């Protein structure tokens, strides 16, 4: 049990670190495409770590399933959203624009 708890805490902390990193990236990166990278980090890696950490603490399989679903849906949405954004930028030739 202790191991699971520790692992869960570690995963959540890791997730928080990635969230922080992606927030810094969102603020510091020069253009939209780079910022998208930071956002994707948050959605994929950070959220993934946090959700995995949270899953380890659940006793109910149902809740585990819900958490997993949340992650999957977020992954899908973020990927699609990132794609659409990038497509728009490419189409409008705005790659070097500094702001959204």
């Amino acid at each position, binding site marked *: 049990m202790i191991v699971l708890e520790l692992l869960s805490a570690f995963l959540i902390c890791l997730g928080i670190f990635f969230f922080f990193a992606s927030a810094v990236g969102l603020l510091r990166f020069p253009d939209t495409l780079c910022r998208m990278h930071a956002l994707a980090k948050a959605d994929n890696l950070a959220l993934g770590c946090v959700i995995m950490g949270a899953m380890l603490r659940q006793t109910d399989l149902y809740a585990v399933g819900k958490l997993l679903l949340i992650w999957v*849906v977020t992954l*899908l*949405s973020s*990927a*699609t959203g990132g*794609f*659409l954004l990038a*497509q728009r930028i490419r189409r409008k030739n705005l790659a070097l624009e500094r*702001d*959204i």
Partner: protein
Amino acid sequence: MSPGLVFDTVLAFSLVVLAVITLRQRTPGEAVVQLMIFGLLLALSWLRVDAPDLALTEAAIGSGVTGALLLAALRRTGFGKPFPAPVSAWLRYPVTLGCAVLGLILSLVVMQSWHHPAGLTELTRQYMPETGTENPVTAVILNYRAYDTLLEIGVLLVAALSVYTLSGPASGTPVKPPGPIFRFYMRIMTPVFWLVVPYMVWVGGRAPGGAFQAGALLSGLGALTLLGPSPWPMRLRRRVVRWGLTLGFTLFLAAAAWMWQHGNFLGYPPEQAKNWILLIEIACTLSIGISLTVMFAGCAGWLHEDPKIAPESAAQAPKRRHP
């Protein structure tokens, strides 16, 4: 200082800061993005005061749908155009000062004399068995104060109609065909939405959920469909859309009036209450979803009203020449 208090303080502080940042944006596009973030934080604060229903609604409608609507509207007016006239400094400072003073008085008053509400929590619990639902929020929304909810549904309907009046003959640019990735996303997400929406309706009887959240989700599906390869809702007959828009309100109103025979407007007999509530929730979910979708389409300029509609001035009788 407990961690909870620290968190709340940070949350409250960031809310204020975000609000100020939102107000200080130079272009509408940036302001809308900030507003959406603000909405998410607001949802978080609802969660902190143990109101998951409100948090859900805030996230879905306050942040999600509103943001989508605003972004859709910006499609017509331009994201990057700066706000027309920045407020001059001599006005900004007194306004800020005034707001600060008002906020200060408000918080002083609240801090000084806040007591746990002597409200109706007890009464609400006491009569729960007669309401036909297990979720006190649903009981308040659809039973004790169903009249308010009836009118709220009316507000949504009317808002959708207002968007209809706004959408003139000038239509937005047609939607570009989406790429394969989006199509793939749609293919996966559509069934998920269809699964989650009924779940939300159904869960409202026991736990946070219900027509407003489910309707917001449904409108998300609607918006996706509109953006997708076959925006079939746009090809629906106007009449069908109108029926869909009014469905919730009509059913709610009819149910309310039907109860006259039991002696009370909106007074469901306790044994049938559950069924009535479920029926109304389903109808309202559909209508809310449709009206939010209509608003989305309207804001984006995709609602093609009859081009023959002329504005009021042109519809007037021609002026007769003066001798």
